[in-house]
């Protein structure tokens, strides 16, 4: 029972793993002053991996006995994750160079985490999903606590760690039940097993199992009530790490969730759709309303990312017997995740640029940024307004697609849509808080802010992307068909 391993399919992963080993080794030989060379190395490696991924566009590869699949969905997410990796790397360089950090180890851990991300969308097997998830989380726990001297950072680490491990345990318990009930780990087979009518006495257990598995991922995507770690961790962790957690790791969670829900458990949708509806509403409401209270920029972004998770969960709640709706719901979710990540990365980039300037960053520290760093100010304004979903920016289209599916779905969809509308109007209030500071308030000191070139580059890049997509949303349509997992 030897299986032929398709090397090209896992080439990106191989390159990535090679890179991170290389980083580790290189770090050992670099003089303290030169430690930051780790970053360029990592960067090149990721670029290579990215290229390798792009070569996979379009073809459908199944390997490791169906455990690992490379299809459009996977490629899309891999590409996305690797791009995020590049951005995070760019954001990190100056930040970690100037602080007292173990740079080499940091980049190593970061890449490991990204390795997990990259594996996630291809894992079509409970075991693989579990491993990938751990691979994403475990290094995350570590780099969250990476500002060793700062108790807040340690605290971020421990909270992240505890909640993470707990939910992993819960998820594993669920997985074990699923395994026990279906006798397989492979998602597709699980799907088949569950699509046939189960014995009545097992029905509740299946549902409970699904719930437990969902809980594990709900932690990753920071959905209420599994979100508590997020604000504390984001605030305590180094800002680039927070950026990573808010985007890549969250997206990884969603990637996993999408596969589970649309491949393994579609048969039970009338059970789990309401659960997602509940989660989504809770997340939208609590996330947005709590965000209104924030004075601290990173926490604000944290709650915003929670609130946004609510919008990303919404499409799951719309899944029904109607395949077309499912397809568009799926597409909407994916699109939302991607666009959201770009906006949030941009915002975090601005924070990184600022945080070299003020220690723990209050919103009020943005006062008069329009004078001190016009480009950053404009960019930040764009991100915030886009996050609020005001056209004609990318954020609007993200919301619009979700919204549209909700209406198309009808009944429960309408309710969700209205909650979404109201909460997003509310959200505008806190999103505008930052531009208000930057533009309406005069700075206490005029000194120009010198942002790192790389970071500025990232911000501008993100801004351009958002505006471009905003005016010409068809750009999104150029992605490979998004709905490969459904139907």
């Amino acid at each position, binding site marked *: *029972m030897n299986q032929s391993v398709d090397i090209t399919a896992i080439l990106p992963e191989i390159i990535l793993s090679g890179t991170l080993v290389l980083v580790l080794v290189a770090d050992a030989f670099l003089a303290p002053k030169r430690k930051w060379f780790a970053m360029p190395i990592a960067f090149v490696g990721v670029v290579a991996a990215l290229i390798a991924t792009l070569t996979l566009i379009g073809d459908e590869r199944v390997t490791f006995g169906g*455990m690992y699949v490379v299809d459009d969905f996977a490629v899309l997410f891999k590409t996305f994750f690797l791009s995020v990796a590049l951005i995070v790397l760019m954001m990190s360089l100056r930040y970690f160079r100037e602080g007292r950090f173990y740079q080499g180890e940091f980049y190593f851990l970061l890449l490991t985490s990204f390795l*997990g991300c990259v594996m996630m969308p291809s894992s079509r097997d409970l075991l693989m999903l579990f491993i990938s998830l751990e*691979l994403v989380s*475990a290094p995350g726990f570590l780099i969250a606590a990476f500002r060793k001297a700062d108790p807040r950072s340690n605290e971020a680490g421990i909270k992240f760690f505890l909640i993470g491990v707990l939910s992993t345990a819960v998820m594993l318990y669920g997985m074990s039940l699923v395994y026990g009930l279906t006798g397989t780990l492979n998602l597709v087979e699980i799907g088949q097993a569950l699509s046939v009518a189960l014995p009545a006495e097992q029905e509740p257990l299946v549902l409970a199992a699904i719930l437990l598995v969902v809980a594990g991922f709900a932690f990753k995507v920071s959905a209420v009530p599994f979100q508590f770690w997020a604000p504390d961790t984001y605030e305590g962790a180094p800002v680039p790490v927070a950026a990573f957690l808010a985007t890549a790791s969250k997206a990884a969670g969603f990637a996993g969730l999408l596969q589970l829900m649309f491949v393994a458990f579609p048969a039970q949708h009338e059970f789990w759709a309401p659960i997602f509806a509940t989660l989504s509403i809770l997340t939208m409401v609590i996330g947005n309303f709590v965000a209104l209270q924030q004075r601290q920029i990173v926490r604000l972004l944290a709650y915003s990312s929670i609130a946004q998770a609510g919008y990303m969960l919404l499409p799951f709640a719309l899944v029904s017997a109607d395949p077309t709706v499912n397809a568009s719901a799926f597409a909407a979710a994916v699109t939302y995740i991607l666009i959201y990540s770009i906006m949030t990365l941009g915002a975090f980039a601005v924070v990184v640029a600022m945080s070299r300037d003020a220690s723990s960053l209050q919103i009020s520290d943005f006062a008069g940024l329009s004078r001190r760093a016009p480009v950053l100010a404009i960019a930040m304004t764009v991100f915030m307004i886009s996050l609020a979903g005001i056209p004609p920016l990318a954020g609007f289209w993200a919301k619009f697609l979700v919204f549209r599916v909700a209406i198309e779905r009808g009944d429960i969809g309408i309710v969700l849509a209205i909650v979404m509308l109201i909460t997003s109007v509310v959200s505008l209030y806190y999103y505008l808080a930052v531009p208000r500071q930057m533009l309406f308030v005069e700075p206490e000191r005029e000194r120009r802010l010198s942002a790192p070139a790389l970071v500025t580059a990232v911000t501008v890049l993100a801004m351009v992307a958002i505006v471009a997509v905003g005016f010409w949303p068809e750009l999104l349509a150029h992605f490979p068909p998004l709905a490969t997992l459904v139907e």
Partner: protein
Amino acid sequence: MSSQEIAFVIVAVAGTIGAFRVVTARNVVHAALYLVVTLSSTGVVYLLLAAEFVAWVQILIYVGAIVILFLFGLMLTKAPIGREALDNQRRGVAFLVGLAVFGGLFYLLQDAFPWTASDVEPVQGSASSIGTSIFADFVLPFEAVSFLLLAALIGAVVLSRKDDAP
């Protein structure tokens, strides 16, 4: 009730008691030792379930490694003694939640699977069979886990080492 089952029940009871003590002991070291009890009895359960390899791994890694880690941790953090130091004020809430979880699971599990004994020949979870299985079907997760362990190792070292100048 077969002999195996009797054995199982005894072991299970031992493990359960150990578990209870782990979460209630007033002395952290005691707690660690009770953990050993539970883990070992779990290992025995594996044996009873004819999963030798898993059992050995359980004993080796858990009892042999993890518990040692715990003890190191306890020493390094010179953990205090006594209920107030070890437990918080919300034991009641915790108990209720725990009970709820157990109740839920128990209820769900009871009639989900037949109580009728199945006299099928158990598969031998021998080292060889599992090893082949791993290296045949589970290469990829294996590699992944190795990276995970590596990362954990490096990270743990970085975090826990005293550093004056990084």
